[in-house]
């Protein structure tokens, strides 16, 4: 009996140490891994002009769509803007810009001065729609295919590596 208890305690201590080791080496921050492969079913965003809605129906014809959340007040959005301008020239890719918690005039001024890379422009004034896309800050971008499957999510401003990665994915068609 004593032997069994000693063995059980040893196994238990080993188990606890293993759990600690694994937990301490695990990144506990939010990551977007679980979103990749998910389908974005019900896209319904009000256009920036407020006259119609952008839905799955509009995006169905695109081979790839990059959904980019941005705002005129967001400094990192200015940093990624040149990359978006470059991406807008790719044939297989269309960009949906979702203006996040912004004023329409400021958003339009932003696009006037820096250029408009967006094929579709939508707005999310209260930020509630962004939750449907798993957004928690801007800028964030989601690359989806024609079946609305999330291929990749980019948290933070797009950079040169992201640009190349998107180009590579899109050109693989």
């Amino acid at each position, binding site marked *: 009996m004593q032997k069994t208890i000693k063995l059980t305690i040893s196994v238990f201590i080993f188990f606890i140490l293993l759990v600690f080791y694994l937990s301490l080496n695990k990144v506990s921050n*939010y990551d977007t891994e679980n979103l990749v492969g998910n389908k974005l079913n019900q896209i319904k965003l009000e256009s920036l002009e407020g006259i119609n809605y952008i839905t799955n129906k509009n995006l169905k014809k695109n081979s790839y769509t990059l959904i980019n959340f941005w705002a005129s007040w967001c400094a990192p959005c200015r940093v990624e803007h040149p990359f978006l301008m470059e991406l807008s020239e790719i044939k297989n890719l269309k960009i949906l810009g979702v203006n996040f918690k912004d004023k329409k005039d400021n958003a339009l001024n932003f696009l006037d001065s820096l250029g408009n890379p967006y094929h579709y422009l939508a707005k999310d004034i209260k930020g509630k729609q962004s939750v449907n896309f798993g957004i928690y800050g801007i800028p964030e971008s989601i690359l989806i295919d024609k079946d609305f499957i999330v291929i990749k999510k980019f948290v933070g401003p797009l950079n040169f590596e992201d640009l190349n990665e998107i180009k590579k994915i899109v050109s693989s068609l």
Partner: protein
Amino acid sequence: MRTKIIFTFLLINFYSYVASNETINENKIYKNLRCLVCQGQSISDSNSDFAVTLKLVVNDLIEKGKSEEEIYNFLSDKYGDWILYKPKFNLENLALWFLPYFVLFLGGLIILYIIRKKVKKT
């Protein structure tokens, strides 16, 4: 007469218990949702932009008649299980749920063994 009074009180208590279970407490939900942009805070404790937006979404879902479970499922679909403070009861989290009971049981067995040993000696 006394029976009638007791019965009425029981009935009132029963109805209030049922009503409290049916009403969704938004604060309880806020407290179980992690603010992803904060350090160790729930959205209930935070006034960050993300927390405020999430509270609006939770309120909308409650108004649409979604249950607490459905709200958690919706948000964990979007942000992963990390957004929930209380882990879901599933195969992945089985050890997390049952380990405390196992430790309690094991501790009880050890105490029982020690006591029996002492009793035998005396």
